[in-house]
């Protein structure tokens, strides 16, 4: 057996490791959950790590997966070893090229972390719908079931492809395998180099396109020969299963790990069999082991090679004794007789079975990473054991509509983890729990012979995301591809005391388990402060209970709020996986490795914290009886609609798995306004309004990323029922009459505590400069009163839009937001733009939202921040895809225009039958401001009433489309990854269309949602994923490209630098009767800045020339004015000062100072040149003989 070393890694790293060793060209594009493979490859190449042949693989990020597939195709044709990584929609974009690559028999591998394809909803989680969509491409489909297999198959697939010439789609389950950390054996470079088939490699190179041996490929063929040519490859495909098996056998000879294409596991005389592929196969296998011990004749057939499908090999693997088979597919083909694996197995049996045909049933499981447990496997075997098994079934859900689902016994266990340590850790995404656990797994994996498994579950929020870490440790390899089950966890740690209110964590505790709680409640008081269910479970299960005030330990050690190493120390001290001293030493070593030379003082403080932890860890003596009255769980208020209470509420409470099919909307339609029901209480401090100082400028409302501070104007008389602490004051300004009050009210349980409202507040106390008109104060003492105040504030009437001057910040901010309490990051730089749009146009908006951060915080269940107003009007929102968003929005516009035209035609025809002047008034109304829109709505309401009375066919036809006589505003929203890269073609087409749509680009200068990968918006010199060595090309100037069309309204805005310019740009964009493009600078956590500095960073971006502010309004040119107005002054801050303040740039100085300096110099030159160019453009003379009136609402700057 050759040399191998063990390592702890997840599936993505395992695959990327092999792929980086075996390839020369790696074309990448980010998509969850495959992105880390590209990130690893890019980082390793940036570090200069070579492949097996001594060259550093060229890693190139493309504009989309379609682009990556094209680059892959080209690289293969030019004779390189090339690969790419993808999933889901990305794989779908590769399909056309996959047909080509397979058609040309170009050996290569695409590694896929299998993920659900979006249908009624997007899902980032796992099933096989993506790979199944690729099964007709001619690619071989090879499935690995675990992290070890993923590593091994990454090699085997490449070897087989080189030999057999069939390109391979190597896939493994997204998240469950791609993100599970496991102990794996890794062959050395030398082993792999000795193993790889050099002759096959030479043959591949010899087929390369070259002028030295020119050939023609990619011909167009006609009916006479295409068919024959297509059939010519049959022997190659017939032989390919043998080629793969041979590669597996050779690999086994040097690694000791033998795989089979179709691998049987179970009783030699099995009568019942499950056929399955993917990570679930190991779960079935461990259940089979258990059932065999119970005397059942059962088995499992693991399918590794799905294409080319070898029915013969599959049949050879089956025991002859099998009487009934359940084939499990992790995909759904709506309307099909059965799913793909089921059908292929049936076909194989029909073709190759030598004797009685067994009964074959087909089931679906695990869609979108639905749990698949031994209990569910047992239910499948139980179904097979019935006299009349259902031919088609589902398992893992309760289907009370089609009644296809199998019931399962939640108490069933396979026993596979009886001797393993199983631990659960509840934390926040931001508190380091996950990173600490990854670290613990690594320590245990490295320091002991134990096997380890780590899997991490996140909720759907970005700010305040709840994470649950599932860890297992044991002496044998751990193949349980499911979460630690209820009642099984021997160790549970709660890193955030607030979770006691929300979750019944101890439901998961095993008898005699250990529970560690981080709390500031003293050990002798904690028992009486626990919720009732916690007391009950501690007593019932005989739990050992510890508490620690980890925040106090962290604070004392100078670690601020970082409690991860402290809680990690508690785990090792109590769980006993390692001898305590060895464990503590290992944690310290890990700290030194992480910080070491880079941050000595932080390393020192962490080590001090580790040393002081145990003195603060206290064992709690439980009380004798359950005496608490505190309840656990989340319930929505009675005021919430029934659907929201019964469905949304259960999802919020973490019980979504229990919701039956009948309660699900069939077409993915969900109600708005549900984020308001999630009171997450994330803020430690909230803003407090000082009425004596405030000038009512509205800036605080504008910058709030979560719409958690609002202003409202209302008659003083409305204050009669006001709570005692509710604040309001006569509103300032000539636009408002006496007796109109204004209130600035915070939603205390929705605020995230980012403090940006206080930062932007321009008013300071003349005598005490540190006191502003808004100041942060601790939330807990304010929570109750302010919640009452918030409820009262919400009950106040809205000020009439027609009485508001929306062109002033104060006025605009009095308008009701239709976007609130999103799950966006604390301090998010995108959401203020969206909220402002929703205030200005929310009651008449359609939103096409590209996939990305804004679609996730906008539409990820359980709730949505988009909301309707009291009249029921609000933004209609949809997310189609990542790449098609501009087209999606354009389609809406075309449809709206068409319906409006039809309505106008019908109106013209019916004019005489309506009240005098009504039709003309409707047809003639420009709806150019809020007052006119209001009047038009009233006219249309009158029209509808009259049409109902008329009742003719024409009247009914008009009634159906009458709403389109009121103006609608189409907003196409997305990030820079969409607008600059994957959707660029669509954006360009829409810009050229001249149609009345508004495009808002939230430019964070990286792909934020997938973790900060480089886009063409990323500035030169910035370090981002896929540009680990700093981006060496400049930022694409999308605005200038758009201005080239002459008839597109274009604005470049940064709200934190000049808020009124943003406001006016949005108003102008919407009023422009053609296509508008607003590019909005959006500071992001990926910039490596503290987002409480969000506004300062925007100001620095503008002042340094990084982000010039301007507006280009074609209406001005028509009137003889230069359409371009520069709204920011020439750069006054050295560009160097700007980049120094952001870690995305400054990190490069620490790692590659000379390169950083060279990139900076180039960027400095570009920035200066760009501003100069805009200055020149803005100075061009557009005057004509008869200049008209300037149409701009205001002049900024």
């Amino acid at each position, binding site marked *: 057996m050759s040399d191998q070393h063990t390592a702890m890694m997840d599936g993505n790293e395992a695959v990327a490791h092999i792929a980086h060793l075996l390839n020369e060209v790696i074309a990448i594009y980010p998509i*969850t*959950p495959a*992105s*880390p493979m590209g*990130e690893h490859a*890019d*980082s390793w190449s*940036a*570090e200069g790590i070579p492949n097996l042949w001594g060259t550093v693989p060229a890693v190139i990020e493309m504009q989309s997966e379609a682009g990556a597939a094209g680059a892959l195709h080209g690289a293969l044709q030019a004779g390189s070893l090339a690969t790419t990584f993808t999933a889901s929609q990305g794989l779908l974009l590769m399909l056309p090229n996959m047909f080509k690559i397979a058609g040309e028999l170009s050996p290569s591998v695409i590694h896929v972390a299998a993920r659900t394809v979006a249908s009624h909803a997007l899902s*980032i989680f796992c099933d096989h719908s993506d790979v199944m969509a690729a099964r007709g491409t001619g690619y071989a489909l090879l499935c690995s079931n675990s992290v070890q297999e993923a590593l091994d198959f990454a090699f085997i697939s490449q070897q087989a492809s080189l030999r057999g010439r069939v390109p391979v789609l190597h896939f493994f389950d997204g*998240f469950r395998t791609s993100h599970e950390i496991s102990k794996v054996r890794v062959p050395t470079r030398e082993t792999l180099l000795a193993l790889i088939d050099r002759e096959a490699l030479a043959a591949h190179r010899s087929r390369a396109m070259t002028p030295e041996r020119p050939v023609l490929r990619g011909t167009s063929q006609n009916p006479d020969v295409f068919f024959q040519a297509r059939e010519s490859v049959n022997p190659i495909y017939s032989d390919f299963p043998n080629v793969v098996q041979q590669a597996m056998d050779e690999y086994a000879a040097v690694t000791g790990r033998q795989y089979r294409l179709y691998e049987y596991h179970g009783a030699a005389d099995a009568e019942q069999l499950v056929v399955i592929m993917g990570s679930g196969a190991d779960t079935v296998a461990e259940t089979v082991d258990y059932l065999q011990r119970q005397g059942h004749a059962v088995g499992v057939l693991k399918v590794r090679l799905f294409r080319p499908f070898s029915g013969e090999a599959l049949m050879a693997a089956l025991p002859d004794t099998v009487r009934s088979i359940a084939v499990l597919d992790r995909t759904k083909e709506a309307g099909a007789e059965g799913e793909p694996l089921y059908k292929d197995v049936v076909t194989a049996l029909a073709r190759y079975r030598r004797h009685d045909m067994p009964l074959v049933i087909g089931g679906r499981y695990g869609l979108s990473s639905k749990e698949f447990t031994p209990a569910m496997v047992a239910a499948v075997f139980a179904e097979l054991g019935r006299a009349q098994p259902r031919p088609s079934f589902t398992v893992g859900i309760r289907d009370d509509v089609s009644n296809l689902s199998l019931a399962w016994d939640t108490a069933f266990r396979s026993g596979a983890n009886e001797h393993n340590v199983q631990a659960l850790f509840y934390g*926040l*995404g*931001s508190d*380091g729990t*996950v*990173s600490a656990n990854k670290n613990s797994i690594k320590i245990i994996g490295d320091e002991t012979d134990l096997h380890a498994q780590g899997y991490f579950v*996140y909720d*759907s*929020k*970005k*700010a305040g*995301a709840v*994470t649950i870490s599932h860890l297992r440790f044991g002496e044998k390899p751990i193949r349980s591809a499911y979460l630690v089950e209820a009642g099984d966890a021997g160790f549970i740690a709660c890193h955030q005391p607030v979770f006691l209110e929300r979750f019944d964590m101890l439901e998961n505790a095993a008898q005699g388990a250990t529970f560690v709680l981080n709390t500031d409640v003293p050990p002798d008081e904690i028992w009486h402060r626990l919720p009732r269910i916690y007391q009950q479970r501690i007593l019932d299960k005989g739990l050992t209970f510890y508490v620690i005030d980890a925040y106090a330990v962290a604070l004392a050690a100078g670690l601020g709020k*970082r409690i*991860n190493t402290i809680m990690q120390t508690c785990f090792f001290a109590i769980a006993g996986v390692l001898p305590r001293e060895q464990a503590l030493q290992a944690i310290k070593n890990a700290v030194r490795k*992480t*910080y070491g*030379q*880079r*941050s*000595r*003082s*932080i390393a020192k403080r962490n080590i001090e914290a580790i040393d002081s932890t145990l003195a603060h860890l206290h064992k709690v003596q439980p009380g004798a009886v359950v005496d608490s009255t505190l309840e656990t769980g989340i319930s929505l208020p009675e005021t919430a609609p029934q659907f929201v209470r019964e469905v949304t509420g259960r999802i919020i409470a973490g019980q979504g798995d229990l919701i039956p099919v009948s309660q699900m909307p069939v077409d993915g339609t969900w109600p708005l306004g549900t984020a308001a029901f999630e009171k997450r209480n994330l803020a430690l401090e909230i803003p407090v309004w000082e009425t004596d100082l405030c000038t009512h400028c509205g800036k605080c409302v504008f910058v709030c990323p979560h719409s958690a501070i609002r202003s409202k104007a209302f008659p003083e008389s409305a204050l009669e029922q006001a709570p005692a602490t509710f604040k309001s004051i006569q509103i300032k300004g000539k636009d408002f009459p006496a007796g109109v009050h204004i209130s600035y009210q915070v939603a205390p349980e929705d605020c995230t505590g980012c403090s940006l409202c206080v930062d932007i507040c321009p008013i*300071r106390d003349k005598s005490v*400069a540190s006191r502003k008109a808004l100041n942060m104060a601790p939330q807990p003492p304010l929570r109750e009163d302010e919640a009452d105040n918030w409820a009262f504030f919400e009950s106040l009437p809205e000020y009439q839009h027609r009485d508001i001057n929306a062109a002033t910040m104060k006025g605009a901010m009095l308008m009701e937001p239709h976007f609130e309490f999103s799950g966006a*990051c604390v301090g998010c730089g995108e959401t203020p733009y969206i909220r402002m749009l929703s205030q200005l146009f929310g009651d008449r908006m359609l939103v096409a939202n590209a996939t990305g951060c804004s679609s*996730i915080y906008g539409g990820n269940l359980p709730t949505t921040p988009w909301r309707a107003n009291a009249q029921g009007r609000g933004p209609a929102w949809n997310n189609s895809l990542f790449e098609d968003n501009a087209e999606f929005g354009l389609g809406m516009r075309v449809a709206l225009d068409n319906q409006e035209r039809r309505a106008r035609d019908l109106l013209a025809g019916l004019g005489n039958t309506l009240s005098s002047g009504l039709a003309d008034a409707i047809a003639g109304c420009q709806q150019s401001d809020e007052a006119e829109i209001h009047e038009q709505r009233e006219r249309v309401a009158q029209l509808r009433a009259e049409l109902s009375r008329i009742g003719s066919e024409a009247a009914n036809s008009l009634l159906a489309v009458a709403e389109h006589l009121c103006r609608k505003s189409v907003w196409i929203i997305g990030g820079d990854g969409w607008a600059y890269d994957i959707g660029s073609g669509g954006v360009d087409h829409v810009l050229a269309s001249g149609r009345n749509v508004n495009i808002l680009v939230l430019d964070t200068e990286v792909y934020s*949602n*997938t*973790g*900060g990968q480089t886009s063409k918006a990323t500035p030169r010199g910035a*370090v*981002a*994923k896929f*540009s*680990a060595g700093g981006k060496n090309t400049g930022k694409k100037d999308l605005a200038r490209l758009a201005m080239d069309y002459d008839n597109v309204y274009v604005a470049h805005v940064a709200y934190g630098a000049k808020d009124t310019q943003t406001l006016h740009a949005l108003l102008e964009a919407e009023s422009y009767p053609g296509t508008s493009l607003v590019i909005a600078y959006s500071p*992001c*956590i*990926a910039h*490596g800045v*503290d987002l409480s500095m969000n506004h300062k960073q925007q100001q620095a971006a503008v002042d340094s020339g990084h982000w010039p502010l301007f507006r280009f309004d074609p209406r001005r040119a028509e009137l003889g004015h230069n359409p371009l107005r520069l709204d920011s002054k020439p750069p006054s801050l050295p560009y160097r000062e700007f980049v120094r303040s952001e*870690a*995305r740039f*400054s*990190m490069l100085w*620490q*790692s*590659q*100072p000379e390169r950083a300096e060279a990139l900076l110099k180039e960027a400095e030159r570009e920035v200066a040149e760009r501003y100069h160019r805009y200055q020149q453009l803005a100075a061009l003379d557009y005057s004509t003989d008869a200049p008209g009136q300037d149409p701009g609402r205001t002049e900024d700057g």
Partner: protein
Amino acid sequence: MVDLQTTYLGLTLKNPLVPSASPLSRSLDSARHLEDAGAGALVMYSLFEEEILAEEHQYERFVHNAALGHAEAADFLPRQAHYQGSLDSYLQHLQTLKSHLAIPVIASLNGVSEEGWTDFGRELERAGADALELNIYFLATGLHEDATSVERRYLDILIQLQDAVNIPVSVKLSPQFSSPVHLVNQMQQAGASAVVIFNRFYQSDINLETLQVEPQLQLSSSYESLLRIRWAAILRGALDIDIAVTGGFHNSSEAIKALLSGANVVQLCSVLLQHGPDHISRTLADMRRWMEEHEYASVQQLQGSLSYRNAADPAAYERENYLSVLDSFTPPAGVRY
């Protein structure tokens, strides 16, 4: 030919002009330029404890805070395999300077806390520093911290560092001590080989538009040299410790005055930033000319000849000096005082 040689921190320098801690030592090219222009030694730019701490915090944010942790992104910025903190860069640069320059290189440590000096000091010594300049910046703003405890803090830091290294250490002081001679004496007893007088600090300014308090640092003026000259004379009169003056020394006249009052070396900063490294050679030429004109054979001959101990009228360095300055002021005619 006059002899400009001097000794400082146990080192023999070819002349007493030493570029002080400034950005000019950040690049090898400008450091070479300084040497070529005649610098007697070089004090490297300061290794700022605050800078290291800030950078460490930034790194920590990189490691943790950027890892917001949601399902699609475990983190947001790629790890930098070749990441090098300021300390490592400083050590590397020190080694580079040492391998390319013939003149002594003095490393400068600038900090505020009582921690960390020993480790930093050891590493600077290992990297080849000929001596260390310890620049303690501590502004006592607490109600209960008295002058003695402030001085104790300085001494403790010095003692820690002395214990850790075997190379000479100088201490750069602020002018704001009640009894500088007493303090410097204690420092000498604690092992300091030299004292550098005086530090110039950033000053807090108020921006009248934003009402924000903002730090300001302006280049020195010649006027500031007088304070240093006086204290060099007083210290030289009382103590046998090496003295470097820094702050406001822009030309040969001021340098000569400092040497006469007792300084071993004169550190230059603002003037080099304004006029470039070649200003050293011009100043040296002027010094030589003056010495020749005034028939001095060597710097050592004139050093301290006008110290408090040796001056013909030492009291002039004391309060009377202040009075005589006031007396020398004659009101303009017609102005009533």
